[in-house]
């Protein structure tokens, strides 16, 4: 069976006054029908650029240097803009981190959702607005008949994010990309929104690509996890396996540096150094300057993303060797 979404060897750079700066290097990932995949990384990892690429939203300065983005087997990258318009919002939808900047402050929120239905499904205004009320109800907005007339500033952060989800789900997309959809929300509201994403996704058969720096969010939602660092995928595995036995040193450290609510550790492990700038990437493995397990080979040769078992890939020369000593 073809994957719903297949990103294959995607390389992207940004054009700057100082020349092209590479931001994605040979990124491959896939999402199956109805699956929830977590994409984890810190700043500069390229996770947001990956999401924008999938939606053809790189903008003037973004350049795809290589690779394919296949939806149901069809490569989207060569499509002209008018074809992209039929994919965006219809087949693939996205929810961003800051609902206040994604929603037009001048128009009522119901109108903004109705707009999507009119545009993609050809509904008339009245029908679209009625459907918007239903969508508001589906996403748990109380008193939806009144709320559709509100402007974004009249709603709380959690409510605005529900509106964004209603907008994204309006056309029952095949894939929903959430780029840090709950990062700006309070923790009790985050729990509500995560539950909503999960329930809606399941009910509509929509696959979800959930991008987050928060490992807890990803652990709670995803069945598979992809970890990115400095523009590359460094590890990919089923969620349970990744958290039980992370194989890439970066993944392992990432899990060790995050404090837990359930249990207090004496001292947090820290990762020395900082994330490299895309214009100043280290030679060899991009993580080696910060890696406690680096050997001379790591400085000289960039490791490839290798399979480790049927469902796991790791980009590390020492992954197999270190696996024997790993425990959490």
């Amino acid at each position, binding site marked *: 069976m073809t994957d719903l979404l297949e990103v294959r060897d995607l390389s992207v750079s940004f054009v700057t006054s100082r020349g092209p700066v590479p931001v994605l290097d040979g990124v491959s990932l896939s999402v199956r029908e109805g699956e929830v995949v977590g994409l984890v990384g*810190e*700043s500069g990892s390229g996770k947001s650029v990956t999401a924008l690429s999938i939606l053809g939203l790189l903008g003037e300065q973004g350049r795809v240097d290589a690779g394919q983005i296949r939806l149901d087997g069809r490569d989207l990258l060569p499509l002209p803009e008018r074809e992209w318009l039929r994919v965006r919002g219809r087949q693939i939808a996205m929810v961003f981190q800051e609902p206040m900047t994604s929603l037009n402050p001048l128009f009522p929120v119901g109108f903004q959702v109705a707009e999507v239905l009119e545009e993609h499904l050809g509904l008339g205004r009245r029908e679209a607005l009625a459907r918007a009320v239903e969508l508001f109800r589906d996403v748990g907005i109380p008193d939806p008949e009144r709320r559709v007339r509100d402007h974004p500033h009249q709603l*709380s*952060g*959690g*409510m605005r994010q529900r509106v964004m989800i209603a907008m994204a789900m309006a056309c029952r997309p095949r894939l929903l990309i959430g780029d840090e959809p709950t990062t700006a929300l*309070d*923790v*009790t*509201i*985050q*729990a*509500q929104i*995560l*539950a909503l994403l*999960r329930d809606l996704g399941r009910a509509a058969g929509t696959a979800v690509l959930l991008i987050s*720096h*928060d*490992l*807890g*969010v*990803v*652990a*709670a*939602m995803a069945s598979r996890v992809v970890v990115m660092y400095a523009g590359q995928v460094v590890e990919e595995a089923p*969620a*349970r*396996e990744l*958290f*039980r036995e992370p194989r890439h040193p970066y993944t392992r*450290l*990432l*899990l060790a*540096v*995050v*404090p*837990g*609510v*359930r249990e*207090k*550790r004496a*001292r*947090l*492990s*820290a*990762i*020395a150094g*900082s*994330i490299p700038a895309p214009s100043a990437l280290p030679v060899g493995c991009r993580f080696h300057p910060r890696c406690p397990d680096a050997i001379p080979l790591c400085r000289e040769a960039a490791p490839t993303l290798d399979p480790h078992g049927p469902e796991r890939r790791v980009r590390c020369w020492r992954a197999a060797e270190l696996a024997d000593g790993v425990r959490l």
Partner: protein
Amino acid sequence: MSGSQSLTPLLSVEGLVREFRVGAGVLRAVDDVTFHVDPGETLGLVGESGCGKTTVGRLVLRLLPATAGRIVFDGRDVTDVPERQLREFRRAVQVVFQDPYSSLNPRLTVRDIVGEPLRNFGATRRAAAARVGELLDTVGLPPGYMMRYPHAFSGGQRQRIGIARALALGPRLLVCDEAVSSLDVSVQAQVLNLLADLQRQLGLALLFISHNLAVVRHVSHRVAVMYLGQLVEIAPEAALFDHPRHPYTRALLAAVPEAGPDAVPPAVLPGEIPSPLDPPAGCRFQTRCPRAEARCRAAEPPLTEEQPGRWVRCYFPEPEPSRRTA
């Protein structure tokens, strides 16, 4: 672990109130808040939007005047003291802000940024520069970086610069307002470890304000939880996180998703956080509380010391687990 009751608190806040006039109404951002911080200890202050924790920080720093209540620092009532009499207070109580990008003047060198408090207190240029070098070293940055401008540094490094600046005058209390919230997790740990080291070395007390419960757990000796302007629970760290007694604290902790092979979707507390402009009558949490009863709607429960050092604002707090191995 410090925080023993026999010490005189370094900071004591009593019945603190801060109101804002909003349109025709009044918003009580901070409503009758009482707590203390002992020398050398960290009090974590947590809560969600509208809880008032940031406003408490500003009040303690005397960046905002209080509407009512008292702030006592090192035995001296500083609530209404005019600014010109606050010199020693300003030296002793410093702040680290959330945003490493807006809290450093982009037009000043690191030397001038970190040295500014020293110059304000009469240090010569040379003496200030020497001290800046020491401070940068203390926070793990090469002293040679002092001639650079903020834009040359990463977020984590800028936060270290902010900490160096806060340490310049040898404060006794550091108010950290979401000090690590804007940092990547790999950098966050570095800064948290630094704060812990500094606390140990310098005997610093910390008022650590954050919405991130895991971070607060990690740094705090005691924790205070706020909801809609009020304190709802105060307890030592382990007690609060392992046996929360207020229903809101329990819900808050249950809502945090944890990374792990057996992770489950976090428990959902339904309902919106009410607007602070129009808080619910009676107990403010009753609109979302799974255990709310008529009594809760009728009258606001007082903050009660259920056991020494454990305060809860609830008519039906979760009972203490029976101790068999105490």
